[in-house]
């Protein structure tokens, strides 16, 4: 069953075969976790989001339309869940200003420092930009797949990706 396509597995699942959904969980839980974690930056919360997201997708499987890719649909669920949680977190917690206030030039930073600073710059992006960066760079998705997952046209995806990268360039490379 592990070799079956996503669509075959979805059909099997809709016919009552729960094992088929387990295969989908195996196939996609890692990228889903990375995406959720990339947005909420909290491993426990990301774990909850992925768990709830899979349960939700299982319960709503009948609403999935086969003309789209299954994983795009799944990403959409996870991203919406993550953004909701992120918003709730922001409502409840004081936004902690974790800006690295030294002005170490980019060239002088160690690799670990660079990664941490870049992560922080991504965190500071508005969610709509953060998501496209996640999908493009961490999940290596094409423009078409990002567009399907976020229900945006490709033009908007390109423009958001460009804006996000430009903002990161300003914040990170010119620091």
């Amino acid at each position, binding site marked *: 069953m592990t070799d079956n396509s996503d669509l075959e597995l979805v059909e099997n699942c809709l016919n009552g075969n*729960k094992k088929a959904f387990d295969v989908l*969980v195996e196939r996609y839980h890692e990228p889903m976790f*990375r995406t959720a974690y990339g947005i909420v930056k909290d491993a426990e919360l990301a774990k909850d989001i992925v768990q*709830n997201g899979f349960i939700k997708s*299982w319960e709503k499987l009948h*609403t999935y339309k086969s003309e789209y890719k299954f994983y795009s649909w799944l990403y959409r669920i996870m991203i919406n869940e993550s953004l909701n949680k992120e*918003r709730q977190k922001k409502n409840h917690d004081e936004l902690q200003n974790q800006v690295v206030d030294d002005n170490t030039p980019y060239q002088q930073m160690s690799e670990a420092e660079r990664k941490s600073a870049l992560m922080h710059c991504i965190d500071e992006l508005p969610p709509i930009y953060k998501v496209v960066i996640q999908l493009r760079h*961490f999940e*290596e998705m094409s423009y078409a797949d990002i567009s399907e997952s976020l229900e945006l046209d490709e033009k908007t995806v390109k423009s958001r990706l460009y804006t996000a990268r430009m903002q990161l360039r300003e914040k990170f490379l010119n620091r």
Partner: protein
Amino acid sequence: MKQRILNIIQAEIDGENSPAESREVKKLLENNADAKSLYEDLLQISKELSSLKSEFEIPENLSGQIKDGISDRSELQGFSTNNIHKIKKEEVMPESNKFFSGKKTLIVAAAAIALIAVLVYIDFPQPNQGDVAGTIGTDVERADRFRGAQMTHDDISLDDEEFQQVLQSDIFIGLVESGELQALAQDESFVNLMASPDFNQLFASPDFNRLIASPDFAQLMSDPSFNELMSSPEFSQLLASPEFAQLTASPDFSRLSASPEFSELMASPEFSYLTASPDFNRLSANPSFHELMASPDFSRLLASPDFNRLISSPNFSRLMANPDFNRLTASPDFSQLSASPEFNNLMSSPDFSNLMANPSFNQLIANPDFNRLLASPDFAALMAAPSFSRLMASPDFSRLSASPEFSRLMSSPDFSRLIASPEFSRLMASPNFSRLMSSPNFSRLLASPDFSRLAASPEFSRLSASPEFNQLIASPNFSRLMASPSFNRLLASPNFSRLMASPDFNQLMSSPNFSRLMANPNFHRMVASPDFGQF
């Protein structure tokens, strides 16, 4: 630099260019310093970003936990992907209607859910109903005097199978023992609400009784998404928020919920299709939508006379395809409500936003059972009943919905299990229950201060929570007694009523000697002996 140039430079880095576009970029980079600099910056940031992928550590056994979660859920809900109601694509409303009707629908749906939840609670059968004798059990210190209007056989027969099943179910006993019910019964706002004439009029109204007896109501009560929402903290927070209380108490809200336009919209298939549609769910779960709804600018727009003129204008009406929706939005009641400060305060409150963002809320409004209930004529009749409006507007109702005891009960698992149980549904749908609810004697009893005092007394709480009481009502002997015609005849007899109301009887019940006798094991042994039976 032109947008197209920016796009192909970026696409080159992402490997999304056609060979011709790649050639074009290569040429451009050789001849244009700005383009080259941009390309290098984008390339560098892209490489840095891609190197971050390895930073994410996947928690151990995450997939196993997800699978377990799904299995638990399916066992809990008896859920199968096979039996889901499929929504046809063509049933979804036209795009043009989505935004405005979505917003109003959310308000209406939120209010409707809250109302239903409260109604579910307040028509919940309290243990008092079978507690006529009031002195059964060994730990009773004294019996409270019971001077309310006596129910007669015409009102209710205690041999009703539905009552028996609910009273004897584990779920009911669990709820009684859980403490939440007792805490609520002792809450002042609850007692006041129970005694208010509005409450009693509503209970006595045929509209209310038709609604709770309808199969739609029963189906909704047993729906997992309804129960999940009821027990969510977001729902409790909204109910407890001052904005919600202000809105439900406002005259504008009462007028709108009683208007025929509102009823027509609720009953329209378009309304059901919309709330059940995936598009509506996606919109209502979208964070930008919540941000917009919560923004002060949006509230100001809603409150402006221009906005109200627009939504009442014939052009706007023509734009909206749904005739029911148009009738509602064009009504003066609707305009008044959407312009009221209470409405706008609720819209911009964080509690309301939190509820909207709750997945259970979205599941519920997409639920066909819920939509059938909203579309049922019984629901429309209830919303239009003046007694319902008065109850919603009463300060007692506001106080009750804001009380922590009420929230605790709503979120207790026992309460959810009870209202989802088939026994509860059967009780709600039974004609005897309706008869009881609408009988004037029952109303008088609920309204009597003695009854409220009894329900709120610590003795009553102790009794109803005691294992002896619960064992008794679950025992076959108790059922047999309740079902016996002689017992029911006795309860209905004027002599019995006179005895219960007499000061002598009440003095005896309250005397320490009587309590001691009741608690004496020898007395129990004697009553249980065959000789006593023969005697």
